[in-house]
């Protein structure tokens, strides 16, 4: 261990000695080069100042300022204080912000912050204020649509309006007297062309329940219109932009309504071949559940006939063999039928499952005292 450390110091010493030697050599070299420069400058000066006897003074160029130039002070623009500072609280905001425009920080008299700071080192962890805030400028604002603005607009267009018709006070009344709602749009803007592609779109909306349809026709109508029918709101919505003119499109959607209506009342021959998988709802009588239930009840009936005593028998079943339609009409079977149908048509939840359970209990005479 000791030997190693000694060796190390030796190496360090050695390297130091080398450094010192190197530095000395550099110094020598530099002094030599300086001497050469001096000689040159002296030779140059000989010609320019040969008349004076005194020692000439060596002038280092740029050391002393030879002439003083007075520059004019740069003109700087004085930024006036932002507008919101001088706004009074009584002012009319609609005059400040008359139309839709980008967010302007100097004109908005309330503090607002927007943006995202990643950590505490960014903007000292504070969400940027409105000053020169790009995030606030990006999004649309509604500063031109305050209640005061709307009031002003309304006031301006009021004398164009007519009186609201009597008897249409509620939405229900409107819906009753005007069942079809058609929507078209006009687009106006300052530009070289007056046409707008979007202006030709026309649509109508109405409630399916307003049409006179029977079960078959309604089912066919719903299948024909597809996703244009919304079962939750019972609305049918037809929209078209296929014709070049608005009036043509409006005529077309009205034609659609007529065509689909009369088509759905037709009963075609191929509709008779409707399979179980084509059914729109679960119908117990067509399904296997009906069959198994009937055969089960028949076998129970046969069993009950052979056994004596009343215990555990299905009392509601008739003594003699009868047609399945009679058994179907029994209240217990009807309750079961309804329960199965709601289980499929409404969907499974605690209520429908419990209803099904109760129905099966009654159907097969199960009892549990718990």
């Amino acid at each position, binding site marked *: 261990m000791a030997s190693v450390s000694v060796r190390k110091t030796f190496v360090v010493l050695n390297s130091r000695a080398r450094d010192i030697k190197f530095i000395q050599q550099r110094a020598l070299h530099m002094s030599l080069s300086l001497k050469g420069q001096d000689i040159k400058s002296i030779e140059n000066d000989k010609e320019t100042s040969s008349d004076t006897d005194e020692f000439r003074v060596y002038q280092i160029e740029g050391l002393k300022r030879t002439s003083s130039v007075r520059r004019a002070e740069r003109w700087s623009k004085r930024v006036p204080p932002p507008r919101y500072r001088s706004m009074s609280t009584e002012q009319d905001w609609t005059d400040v912000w008359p139309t839709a425009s980008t967010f302007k920080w100097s004109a908005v008299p309330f503090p607002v912050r927007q943006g995202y700071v990643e950590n505490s080192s960014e903007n000292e962890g504070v969400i940027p204020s409105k000053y020169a805030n790009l995030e606030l400028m990006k999004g649309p604002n509604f500063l031109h649509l305050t209640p005061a603005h709307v009031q002003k607009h309304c006031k301006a267009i009021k004398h164009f309006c007519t009186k609201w018709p009597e008897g249409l006070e509620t939405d229900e009344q409107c819906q009753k007297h005007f069942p079809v709602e058609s929507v078209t749009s006009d687009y106006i803007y300052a530009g070289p062309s007056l046409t707008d592609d979007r202006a030709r779109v026309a649509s109508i909306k109405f409630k399916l329940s307003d049409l006179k349809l029977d079960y078959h026709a309604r089912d066919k109508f719903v299948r024909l219109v597809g996703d244009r029918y919304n079962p939750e709101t019972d609305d049918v919505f037809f929209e078209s932009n296929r014709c070049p003119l608005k009036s043509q499109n409006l005529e077309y959607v009205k034609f659609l309504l007529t065509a689909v209506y009369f088509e759905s009342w037709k009963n075609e021959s191929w509709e008779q071949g409707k399979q179980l998988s084509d059914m729109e709802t679960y119908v117990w009588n067509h*399904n*296997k*559940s009906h069959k*198994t*239930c009937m055969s*089960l009840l028949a*076998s*129970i009936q046969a*069993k009950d006939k052979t*056994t004596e005593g009343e*215990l*555990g*028998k*299905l009392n509601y079943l008739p003594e003699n063999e009868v047609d399945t339609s009679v058994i179907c009409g029994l209240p217990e079977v009807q309750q*079961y039928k309804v329960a*199965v149908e709601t*289980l*499929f048509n409404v969907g*499974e*939840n*605690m209520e429908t*499952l419990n209803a*099904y*359970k109760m129905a*099966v*209990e009654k*159907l*097969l*005479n*199960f*009892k*549990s*005292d*718990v």
Partner: protein
Amino acid sequence: MAASIRQKLSSVASRTNSLLRKSVTSIEHTPCVCSCYSTAAKRLEQEPRTAFRTNETDPRKHTIDHVGLYYSVPDEEMAVLKTGVHPWHLRMMKSFNESCMMVRKPALELKGYLDKLNLKHPVPRFLLYGRRGSGKTMTMQHTIQCCHKNGWIIVHVPWAGQWVRGWYKEVAVSTYKPDRYDLPADSAEWLNHFRAQNQGKLTGLKTTSEYIWTKREKAEAGTSFDEIINFGLSRLKFSSDCVGVLLKELREQAELKGLKVLVAVDSVNAFYVQWNQLNALKNIEKKKLQPGEISLVHNFKKMLNPDWTHGVAICAVSEEANDEDRRENFTPVYLLGQEGFEALDPFVPIFVPEYTEKEALSNINYFIDRNWIQNAHGKTDEGKKELMFVSNRNPFNLAKICAQS
């Protein structure tokens, strides 16, 4: 003047002081000499006794009063139930050094149905459903124990999903019908399970018709069930057929001999719902097998048909037995699918809810009693409430959370 006021004040102060002192002495509780005359409720020396156990170990005698209480299952009955209990539950029972089960309402409900049943009618079907880990399997075990005590023959499928999926399983073409497939190992396992569950109940049961296995081997009419089981276990090739024979004979003889047969199938939806290409069983040609093509499943489906009597079928649906994209809901029709519903309909759906507050508390107290919860905070009321909240009172979640902390 000032002096007089001060005097008055001091006298008032002294009076109130004395009054205060008096009132203090009057309120102060003196150790009553005759405590027998005291009407005050006696302060409890320790926490109130937490009742989470019942001495009624016979599941047949459980009533609504026992709901939420634990009862211990003796070892000889545990041998019957063991195969149906989930391994993590078994491990827990082993750690607790006793096998305890909780009496719960759905099990009592099921027992109520069974007690009032007319066995001469075609087999009634009961279907347990509930959220994952809510105790469907344990409800089934409770009922199985009941029926076992009553001397019923138990036909139990602990986990039907085992038969319809798997990767390295031996799948052989059925010796009985070429378009069906046998699972020799699973069939043998089930035969063992069946024998273990019905020890002593199968004596005297004999086949009623002749079964020809091969040219040289056959089982004459009158062969005992034990022999059939032994044959199936020694000749694995025919184990699936042996299962079929046993089930068929049980169905036929149940009415003749007045047997009582309990068919219990856990996760019955595996019988009716297909598995995806990856996990489903495949034959040698890598063709995916439908559940109905597997002879075991085919035979057990027959047990669930209402064309035989003197039996009861109890099934449970579970989300795990369905393919991964069909597990959103826990309701029976969704899990069974149209085919399964049509096969089981009309059944009695029995909802297995998660723990009530009483049951959850009883479970936590049981864990504390078994030193399973050792954390001091877990033993406080607040800790118990936290456990209930975090687990959402789901039995499996509760056990899982208590095992973690």
